[in-house]
Each structure stands twice: as C-alpha cells, then as structure tokens.
C-alpha cells in the first residue's frame, strides 16, 4: 500500500502553514474554512509551490526533501490535479485537452482514440471535437475529470471540483470519482467546503484551521450536517 506522507512548513507574509498528514489510497477530505491552507497543501504536494522546509514522499519515493536538497519537478510527479477553475485549455478541443497528459510514447492517433474512450466514459463523447467555450458547467467538469485521469496518476488532488454544480450533478460526479479512485488505488486529497459532499466521499477526514491540522478521523469528526466550513456561507 502506497502512502502519501506530507510534512511541510511554509511562511508567506502573516500566514504560517505547518501541516503533517498521511494519506492512504482512497479519498482523504481536507476540510476547513477559507484561508485554512487547504489549497496550499495541494500546491505543495503537486510541486507548484515549494515549502520552506519539509518532506513529501509517496511510499519510498521521495518527491521533496528540503534538508537533503531533493526536489522532483512538477511534471515528473504524475499528480492528477483538478483545479477549482478547471483550467481546460481554451485553444484545444476536448480530445486534445484529454490527450495532453498522456505519455507521448504512444502514437498520436492512439492517444486521441483513448481520449475519445475516456470522454465517452464521462458521458461527454459528443463534445470530443469542440472547444471549452461551448461547454456547460457540468460538461466542462466532466472533460476536466477525463483529462486528469487520462494520465494514470500516482496521486489525485481535487480542489473543490464540484462547487459550481447543482445537487444532482454533484452527486453523480462524486459517484464517478469515488469509483475511479477506488479502481486506481491511489491517495486522493479532496478539498470541499460542503459537509454533505465530504460525508459522501470521505474515507478519512483531515480538519485544517489557520494552517494547522486540528483533527484526523472518519466522517464523524465533520461538523454538523448542513453547516459548511464557512458557517453556512455557501449554498448547499
């Protein structure tokens, strides 16, 4: 079993982050108010940000060790990162977006064919040759998931991927993600503000507040249902 071990410290301006957590394969929800440092943790794991000190390892594979001077660049870490804004490439079609992260050993046609399969699996096969500016919110979301999972990731990072979706769509996509993550068997960090979403998907919960871990456990450590981490600031 490959465990993602994170032990990092970072100071930016007045904000100090000191986080230590382990994520086993399956979904670990990071839960906490805005400004708790949840997105920063994902940026550090992906390599898009660098901690002042610390160590990040996936099993025996050390991705970062500031003391030892080890740092693996972002593009060699193989993390599937679904951004809050999705960040679909506006100049590429759904197929080209999806194929972007596939290893380039395979010929172009083979990659495109696999991208089409994946899009179909996410029920957006009909969008294959269209560009993102024509997608609805839910469609864009599905294409973003297809793109992220096309790369055979070793770790999955999801930053409030479904915050803009309505209830029904959100539940459906949570089901899809749960299934894929189970198939992949890789550690997954999932940020959400939404208690219902956290309860649905979490195998483990890490509570974050002001840059620190304030609790680790099962879904039972989440605050009262229907509340949100911001105290009800977001619609359900």
């Amino acid at each position, binding site marked *: 079993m490959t465990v993602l071990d994170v032990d990092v410290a970072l100071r930016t301006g007045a904000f100090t982050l000191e986080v230590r957590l382990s994520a086993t394969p399956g979904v670990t929800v990071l839960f906490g108010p805005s400004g708790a440092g949840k997105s920063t943790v994902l940026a550090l794991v*992906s390599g898009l940000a660098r901690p002042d000190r610390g160590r990040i390892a996936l099993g025996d594979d050390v991705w970062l060790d500031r003391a030892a001077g080890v740092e693996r660049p972002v*593009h*060699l870490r193989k993390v599937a*990162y679904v*951004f809050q804004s999705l960040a679909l490439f506006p*100049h590429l079609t759904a197929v080209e977006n999806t194929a972007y*992260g596939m290893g380039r050993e395979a010929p172009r046609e083979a990659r495109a064919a696999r991208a089409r399969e994946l899009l179909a699996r996410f029920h957006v096969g009909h969008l294959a040759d269209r560009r993102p500016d024509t997608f609805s919110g839910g469609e864009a979301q599905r294409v973003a998931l297809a793109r992220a999972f096309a790369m055979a990731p070793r770790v999955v990072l999801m930053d409030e991927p479904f915050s803009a979706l309505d209830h029904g769509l959100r539940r459906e996509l949570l089901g899809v993600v749960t299934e894929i993550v189970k198939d992949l068997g890789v550690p997954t960090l999932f940020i959400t503000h939404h208690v219902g979403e956290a309860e649905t998907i979490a195998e483990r919960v890490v509570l974050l507040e002001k840059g620190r871990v304030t609790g680790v456990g099962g879904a039972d450590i989440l605050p009262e249902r229907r509340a949100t981490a911001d105290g009800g600031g977001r619609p359900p």
Partner: protein
Amino acid sequence: MDLGPLALSLQIATLATLLAAVVGLSVATLLANVRFPGRDIVDVLFTAPLVLPPTVLGYFLLVVLGRRSFIGELFERVTGHTIVFTRTGAVIAAAVGALPFIVRFGRAALEGVDAVYMHAARTLGASPLRALFTVQVPLARRGIVAALMLGFARSLGDFGVTLMVAGDIPGETRTASLAIYGAIQAQREGEAYALVAVLTVASLTALYAVGKLTRRERTVR
C-alpha cells in the same frame, strides 16, 4: 518614380523583424516567466532604444559592431564584408529599434495568460518548455502578433540609427526614410510624395491591426 528604396525598406524591415523576434521574444519569455537577479536591468536595457537619441544609439552600435570591434572583426573575417555601412548594418539598426516593442508587448502578452493554465500543463506532465510552446504561446498569440507588427512598423521607418550605422548608400542602405530626407534636401519633393504616402499608410494600418488584435484578445478572456 524610383521604388527601389521602398523595396529595400521592406526587405530590411522584414529581416530586422525576424532578428528582433528571435532575440526579443526570448528576452520577453525570460522576463515574463523567470525570476533572476538583474531582471530589472535587462528590462531597462531592452527598453532603452525607445528613449535614447538615435545618434547615441548609433554610436554604441558603431562601437560594438565597427570594423575594429571584436564582433565586427570576426564578422569580416568570416563573411568577407563589414557590418557597418552595409545592408547587414541597416538590418541590425532597424532591429534595435524594433526590440523594445517586441520585448514590452511580447512580455505583456505572455504575462496576460492566466497562470492556472501553465499550472495545469505542468501537472499534466509538461516540462516548462513544452508548457510554454503548447499553452502559453498559443494563448498569447494575438498579443505576440501585435508586438511583431509594431516592431515591423518601427523598423520600416527607422532613420537615425540606420544613417549612423549603415550610412546612405543608394541601392544598399538608402531605405525609404532616407530617400525621403534626401529628396526633400535636394528640393525634389515630388520624389518624396509616394514614399511618404506608402510609409504613412503602412504604419497606420499596422497600428489599426494592433488595436484590433489586442482588443479582441481582451473580450476572449
């Protein structure tokens, strides 16, 4: 009417824009994407041609590229002709004028691409160079084309630096701007009219196109 100077101007401006594009877009990329010591100094150096008097700029180029300079001597040994007072010198003079536009506007275009697209590309396995060429440059393409058009318009009209570095040699370095000056000086205004008209139309067209390109880019985002 002699259209030779105009053809020469187009040829020199095209080569100058190509040269300035290679140098200027590389510098623009560095300034936009890499934090390095001396970044502000590089920025100032590549903006300087915009504000330095052409004579001063020409003087510096003569010092760096002249027959007794290291570069000038090496060039002459390899090619058999000098840089200064040749078409090569005129191309370099025009390119230097175009550089500030290409660096400034190219940098702005690259910096205008939302960083999250680059982040997405990197997490999807793209090296920094692949992310640059497959995501950042395509998304900045309108702004980059606008920068190159401004650079081209600027090099098409260069006068002072060209005169200092390349002289006013008919058929070799006498571009349209220089021919206009010569015609006016000799009180043969009739010869200047056509060249004045073409340069005016070319410059205004380039500005208009630049405005269109950069405006549409804003609404896309």
